[in-house]
């Protein structure tokens, strides 16, 4: 890893990704060996949006490395409430912490903060933009299940606003992967992501119907269709129903299909799928800890070498 900050998955080359995933695998194999790797390291958590998995896994990751976390807490009880800018808040917390993790509702927030701080900054989601650390744990999960080359991956749901989708799509361009995007017309990939995928010569197909591609898939990555995006509740229910999966849907799938979801899910994946061999979404969420441990360790290691 040779990056001061991690803002978008577009920054990540194949060697970068493999380095993080290999380190994560080492950590997974012997958690105790990394228990004091980052003693005296403090991670600053800046979450301007609700988060369970990302925030708790970052906090767990730094603690498992022997370090600690300081958390600015909910926006309502921070100085943001008094009108402090994001740039100022970041510059203040930079003085307390060795690295920062930012989740923010505005696209481009992490890119902007990276221009104001010197400590490593990790983008933990910026609106409908990017979520590169989620992508690393997604790739780790995929690698464990199917390997990362020769892959047929379906990505289904809200592709327009789904930041996990955008980051995953960018990262997969480093591998021999055929990407199938499945969504209603109104939630297709945004122009900017298509532009990048085209520039990278990615192997991409778009569909509105999962049945067209399901039998060929090695991985099906499902995302939540966000109810709040629809002005009409009936329209949401009509669409959401079409993009959910259950055991009946999966009858046409390969036996070794891996079903993933960044979570939280609402009704995109019926709970009857949970106990099948297809379901990898809880494991995927758990992988957040070793992958974020690996990422923090590598970025802080690089910081020390400067």
């Amino acid at each position, binding site marked *: 890893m040779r990056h001061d900050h991690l803002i978008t998955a577009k920054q990540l080359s194949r060697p970068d990704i493999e380095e993080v995933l290999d380190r994560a695998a080492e950590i997974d194999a012997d958690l105790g060996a990394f228990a004091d790797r980052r003693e005296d390291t403090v991670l600053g958590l800046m979450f301007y949006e609700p988060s369970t998995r990302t925030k708790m896994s970052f906090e767990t990751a730094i603690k498992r490395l022997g370090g600690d976390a300081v958390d600015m807490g909910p926006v309502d009880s921070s100085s943001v409430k008094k009108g402090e*800018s994001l740039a100022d808040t970041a510059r203040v917390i930079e003085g307390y912490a060795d690295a920062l993790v930012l989740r923010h509702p*505005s*696209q*481009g*927030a992490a*890119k*902007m903060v990276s221009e104001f701080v010197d400590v490593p900054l990790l983008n933990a989601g*910026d609106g*409908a933009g990017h979520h590169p650390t989620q992508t690393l744990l997604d790739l780790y999960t995929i690698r464990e299940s199917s390997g990362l080359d020769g892959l047929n991956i379906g990505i289904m749901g809200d592709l327009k606003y789904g930041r996990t989708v955008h980051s995953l799509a960018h990262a997969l361009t480093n591998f021999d992967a055929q990407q199938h995007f499945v969504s209603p017309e109104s939630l297709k990939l945004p*122009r900017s992501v298509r532009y990048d995928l085209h520039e990278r010569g990615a192997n991409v197909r778009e569909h509105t119907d999962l049945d067209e591609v399901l039998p060929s898939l090695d991985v099906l990555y499902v995302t939540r269709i966000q109810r709040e995006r629809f002005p009409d509740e009936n329209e949401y229910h009509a669409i959401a129903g079409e993009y959910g999966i259950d055991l009946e849907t999966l009858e046409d799938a390969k036996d070794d299909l891996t079903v993933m979801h960044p979570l939280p899910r609402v009704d995109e994946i019926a709970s009857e799928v949970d106990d099948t061999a297809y379901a990898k979404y809880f494991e995927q969420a758990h992988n957040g800890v070793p992958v974020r441990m690996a990422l923090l360790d590598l970025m802080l290691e690089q910081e020390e070498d400067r």
Partner: protein
Amino acid sequence: MSDHQLRVSKIRNGTVIDHVRAGQALNVLAILGIDGSKGEAVSVGMNVPSDRMRRKDIVKVEGKELSQNEVDVLSLIAPEATINIVREYEVVEKQQLERPDRVVGVLSCPNRNCITNADEPVETKFEVLDDGVRCEYCETIVREDLAAHISVE
């Protein structure tokens, strides 16, 4: 005397923006922040005959020379334009516009959810693409109606 000179009078000191695509003159004025409220002397010729372009617009602004930012954004909406700097009625500098790689602080991002629209101490930055521009923060691509996003002070 050429046809357009008959229609648009000479200026003493300032800028003549010539060979503007027909219909773009008002957008050029928007880039320059000229709405007549500050008393600037401005001459505008619209749809005047042109050998090179058949029809063109021309803008003459008394007492103003363009900044590089203004030239950069002008190049996005009027790439064929020529800028003539006039001093004492003489053209002292003639500049053909070149598309820059990026424009800083001159366009606003149409994405309401972009951090540049959130009252933060940050200037907009757009990468110039072959057929539009792209916000360097939220990555929104703008291809149509760039003039509507001009925010030059």
